[in-house]
C-alpha cells in the first residue's frame, strides 16, 4: 500500500535550483535511505515533506490525501500546515531537544499540548517509548546530562509520540562521535522491525545498504539512481552514482 507519493517536486532558493523534479513513492513499512553528497537536495527534500520549506511545483500525497500541491497558489494557512505536518515526524541532525525539560517531558510536551489523550495515556505511552529506545532509566535526566547518542534516541521517541505516518531522519548520526552512531542506528533498525515507515537521509553507507528496502541516490537536485540496495550499491547504472560510491565506500 502506497503511503507517500511525491511527484515532480521543484524548489529553488533564489536562482539556485535545489530540487529539479523529484518523484518517488513509498509503501507502508518501507525504509527509504537517501544518500548523496552535501548540497544534493536531500535535506531540502525532507524539509519540504515536513512543511518547513515549500516547493514551487509538484505534489506530495500521503495516504491518498494531497498534502501539498504547487499548482494551488492560495496561501498556506498556519493551522492547515500544522495538521499536515503531523503526518510526518522529523528527527534532526542536531537533536534539538528542549533543554529545560527532562527526557520524559520532552516526549510528553507535544501530545499534552495537542490534548487528544488523557494524561495517564500519554504517560503510559511515553514510558513505552522510552523503553523502546532503551532509556527508561534516563527518564528524568535533562538533555545536558545525556550523551549525544542518548539525546538522539530521546529525539526519536519524541517524534514517535506524535504517531506520524512517516518518520524522517535528517542525518541522524552525523553530529555523533563514531562510537555513538551504533546505538542510534540500532534503534532505527528496531523501528523497521515494528513496521514504521521511514525516510533516512544518511551518510552511513553500511546502514543504507543493510537496513533499507529502497535507496535513492540524489545529486544536484535530481534522483540519479533509485532501487533496492542491491541495485544501487552493487549494480549502479549511472556514472555519477558509481563515482560517488567509489569515493564513499573507500
Amino acid at each position, binding site marked *: 500500500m502506497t503511503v507517500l507519493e511525491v511527484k515532480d517536486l521543484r524548489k529553488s532558493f533564489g536562482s539556485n535550483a535545489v530540487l529539479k523534479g523529484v518523484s518517488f513513492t513509498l509503501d507502508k513499512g518501507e525504509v527509504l535511505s537517501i544518500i548523496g553528497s552535501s548540497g544534493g537536495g536531500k535535506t531540502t527534500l525532507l524539509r519540504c515533506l515536513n512543511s518547513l520549506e515549500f516547493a514551487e511545483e509538484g505534489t506530495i500525497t500521503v495516504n491518498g490525501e494531497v498534502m501539498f500541491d504547487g499548482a494551488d497558489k492560495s496561501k498556506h494557512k498556519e493551522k492547515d500546515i500544522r495538521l499536515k505536518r*503531523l503526518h510526518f515526524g522529523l528527527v534532526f541532525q542536531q537533536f534539538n531537544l528542549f*533543554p*529545560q525539560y527532562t527526557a520524559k517531558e520532552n516526549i510528553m510536551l507535544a501530545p499534552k499540548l*495537542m490534548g487528544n489523550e488523557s494524561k495517564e495515556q500519554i504517560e503510559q505511552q511515553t514510558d513505552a517509548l522510552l523503553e523502546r529506545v532503551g532509556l527508561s532509566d534516563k527518564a528524568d535526566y535533562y538533555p545536558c546530562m545525556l550523551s549525544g547518542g542518548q539525546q538522539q534516541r530521546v529525539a526519536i521517541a519524541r517524534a514517535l509520540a506524535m504517531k506520524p505516518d512517516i518518520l524522517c531522519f535528517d542525518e541522524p548520526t552525523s553530529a555523533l562521535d563514531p562510537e555513538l552512531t551504533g546505538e542510534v542506528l540500532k534503534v532505527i533498525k528496531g523501528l523497521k522491525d515494528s513496521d514504521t515507515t521511514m525516510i533516512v537521509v544518511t551518510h552511513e553507507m553500511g546502514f543504507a545498504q543493510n537496513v533499507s528496502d529502497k535507496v535513492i541516490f540524489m545529486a544536484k537536485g535530481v534522483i540519479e539512481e533509485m532501487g533496492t540496495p542491491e541495485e544501487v550499491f552493487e549494480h549502479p547504472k549511472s556514472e555519477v552514482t558509481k563515482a560517488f560510491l567509489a569515493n564513499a565506500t573507500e
Partner: protein
Amino acid sequence: MDFSTITSDLLSGFLENLKLFGLTLAFSLPLGLLLSFCSMSKIPPIRWLAKTFVWIIRGTPLMLQLFIVFFVPGIVFDAPLKTRFTAALIAFVINYSAYFSEIYRGGIESIPVGQHEAGMVLGMTRKQIFFKVVLMQVVKKIIPPMSNEIITLVKDTSLARVIAVAEIIMVADRFTARGMIWPLFYTGVFFLLFNGILTLLFGAIEKKLDYYKV
C-alpha cells in the same frame, strides 16, 4: 537633628525611590516584551516604528525625558500632569521599556532556529512554541543583562529629583542646605544595601536555573 531622625527622613525619601523602582519594573517588563515583538515584526512599518522609538529613547538622556514628560503636556495641551511622581513614572517606564526590549530581542534571537523547527514538526502552534519552548530559554539567557539593567534602574530613580520628586538625594540635599554634608554621602548606604539584596536575589535565580543548559 540626630542620626536616627535623619535616617528616618532619608528612609522615607528612599521609599519614594523604591516605589518608582517597583512600579517602573511592573510596567516596563511586559511593555518591553511587547516592544521587542514589534521590533522583530514581519510588518516593516511596525518594525521601523519600534526601532525609531528605541533609537530616540536610548539616544537621549533620561534626565531630558523627565523634563519633557513633565513640562510638555502643560505647554502643548494646557493639561499639566497631576503629580510629579506620575510624570517621573511615565518617563521611567518609557525609557526602561526601550532598554528591556533590546535585551529581550537579543535573548529571543539567540535561541537556535532548530528549537522553533522542533516545535513546528511536533505540530505546536506559534504561541505554544514561544511560551512552552522558547520563553524559559530566553529567561535564562537574559538574567545577567537584566540584573545589570535593573540595578542601574535602582540608582537612576534618584534622577527624579530634577522634577522635584522627593526622593532620597533630594531629601539629603535639604540637610546640605543647612550645612550638613554627611547625610548626602550617607544615602549611598541605602543604595548599596538594596542593590546588595538584589544581587543576592539574581544570584539565587541564576543558580536555580542551573539545572539546564541553553
